[in-house]
C-alpha cells in the first residue's frame, strides 16, 4: 500500500510542480500550458470528436503492426529455433537491428508501398517484429529438454508440442516480446506519421506544432501518453498474474 502511495506521489508531485510553474508564468504559456488546461483541452477534443478519425487511423495502424509483428515474430521465432544454421546466420543481425535508423528507409517504403497506410504499418511492424522473434527464441531456449521428452511420451506431434508445451512454457518471454512489440509499434507508426503522412495522431501533432497550436498539440501528446501508459500497465498486470502463478512458493 505504501509503495502505491509513493508511486502516486512520484507522478502527482512533478505534475503539481509543473502546474504551479505554468500558473505563475515561470514557464510561459507558449512553451507549455498548465497540465490542468492540457487535460481540459483533451476532454474537449474527445467530447467534440474533432480528431476521432485521426485517433482511429493511428490505433488501427498500430493494431495492424502489432498483430503482424506478434504473429510473424512468433512463427519466425519458432521456425528459427529449429533451423540452427539459419539462426546462427541471422543472430548478429538481430543483435544489431535496433542500431539501424529504420526511418532512413521511409522514402524506400513510400516508393514500394505508396502513400497510404502501408509505409506506416510497415515501419511499426519492422520495429516490432525483431523484439518478438528474439523473445520467442529466448523463450523456446528456456524450455527444459525433459518437457519435450514428456510431450513425446504423451504422443504429441510437433505442432501440438509447440502449441501445448513449448509456447505455454515460453509464455512469460513471449509476453515480454508482446510488450516490446506494442511499444515499438507505437513508436514506429506515430513516428512515421510525423515524417510523411496526411492523417493520424502523429500528423495532427506535427500540423499543430507547425501552426503554434498548443491547444491541440499538447492534449494530443497527452492522449498518446495515456494510451501508452494504460496499455502497458494492463499488460504489466497480466504479466504479474502469469508469473505469480508459476513462481509462488
Amino acid at each position, binding site marked *: 500500500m505504501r509503495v502505491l502511495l509513493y508511486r502516486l506521489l512520484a507522478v502527482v508531485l512533478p505534475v503539481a510542480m509543473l502546474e504551479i510553474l505554468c500558473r505563475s508564468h515561470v514557464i510561459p504559456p507558449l512553451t507549455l500550458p498548465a497540465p490542468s488546461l492540457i487535460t481540459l483541452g483533451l476532454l474537449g477534443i474527445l467530447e467534440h470528436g474533432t480528431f476521432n478519425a485521426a485517433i482511429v487511423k493511428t490505433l488501427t495502424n498500430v493494431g495492424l503492426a502489432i498483430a503482424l509483428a506478434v504473429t510473424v515474430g512468433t512463427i519466425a521465432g519458432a521456425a528459427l529455433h529449429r533451423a540452427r544454421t539459419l539462426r546462427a546466420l541471422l543472430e548478429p543481425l538481430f543483435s544489431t537491428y535496433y542500431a539501424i535508423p529504420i526511418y532512413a528507409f521511409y522514402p524506400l517504403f513510400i516508393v514500394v508501398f505508396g502513400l497510404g497506410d502501408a509505409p506506416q504499418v510497415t515501419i511499426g511492424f519492422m520495429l516490432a517484429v525483431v523484439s518478438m522473434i528474439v523473445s520467442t527464441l529466448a523463450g523456446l531456449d528456456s524450455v527444459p529438454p525433459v518437457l519435450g521428452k514428456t510431450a513425446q511420451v504423451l*504422443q504429441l506431434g510437433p505442432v501440438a508440442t509447440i502449441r501445448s508445451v513449448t509456447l505455454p512454457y515460453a509464455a512469460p518471454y513471449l509476453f515480454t516480446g508482446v510488450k516490446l512489440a506494442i511499444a515499438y509499434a507505437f513508436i514506429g507508426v506515430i513516428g512515421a506519421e510525423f515524417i510523411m503522412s496526411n492523417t493520424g495522431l502523429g500528423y495532427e501533432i506535427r500540423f499543430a506544432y507547425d501552426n503554434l497550436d498548443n491547444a491541440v498539440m499538447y492534449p494530443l501528446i497527452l492522449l498518446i501518453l495515456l494510451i501508452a501508459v494504460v496499455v502497458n500497465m494492463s499488460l504489466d498486470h497480466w504479466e504479474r498474474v502469469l508469473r505469480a502463478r508459476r513462481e509462488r512458493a
Partner: protein
Amino acid sequence: MVTAHPIHVALRDVTKIFQSKLGSVEALGPIDLELRQGEFFAVVGPSGCGKSTLLDIMAALTPPSSGTVTFEGRPIGNSVPDGVGVVFQENACFPWLNVADNIIFGLRRQPLDQAEIERRLQYALQLMGLNDFSRAFPAQLSGGMRQRVCIARTLVMQPRLILLDEPFGALDQQTRLLMGDELLRIWRATGATVLLITHALDEAAMLADRVAVMSARPGRILEVIETGWPRDRDSRIVSAPEFGAIAGRLWTLLRTQSLQALRPDTA
C-alpha cells in the same frame, strides 16, 4: 518360474553410438535383455554407463544404432508405443497448469469422456496422496510432491510398461524410501511391468524382483540378479539379512566398473 511369465520387452544386440565433433562414442551395448510381464526390474551401473540411454531406447525416445527392441511382441518404431509411460528424474511438471490439469494433460488428448477422465484423476490423486493439492501449482509443491504429480500423470494413462529414469534422484534418503514404498504399492495395484533406472544400489535391492548390473561405458549387462523378494514387500526389508547380501553382491560387481568410470586410464 521364468516360463510362467511371458516376455514383455525384449532387446536383441542393441547398441548406441553417438556421433560428435570429436568422433563417434560407443555409449551402449551390445545388450540382450528381457523384461517379464508384470515384474519390477531395476538397472544399476556406474555414472555415464548408458543407463538413461537404454531407457530412452526402450521408450523409443532415441533409436538404437543397431539391434531390435520389441514391446509386447512387436518391434517399436520411431514414436513411443501405446501403453508405455515414462517418469524422468528432472521436474517434468508443466508450471502453468495446476496439479489436476498436469495429471490429465495426456488424457485430454485421448478419446475419453469427461466422466472417465474425472474417474482416473480421482483415482490417481487418491493413490498418490495428492487429494488436497489438486488446485495447487507445481511451484507451491516440494520436489517429492512434484515427482508424485509426474507419476500420477503417467499412471492415468494406464501404461502396461512404466519406465522410471532415476525418479527419486533429487530427493533425500527418507523421502526416497517412502516413495519406494509408494512405487511398490502402485506396481502391485496396476500390475504393470516396471523398469527402474537408478544409481542407488539399496533402492534397486529393495524394490526390484531382478536387478541388472551394467558395466562402465560402453554399457553392457554384466549380470542379472534375482532378489527373491515377495510381491507384498515394503521398505522394512532393508533390515532383512538378505537385503545386505543383495546390496553387497551388487557393489562387488559394480566396484571395479565404478572405478573404471571414475578413472578410465586405469582400465
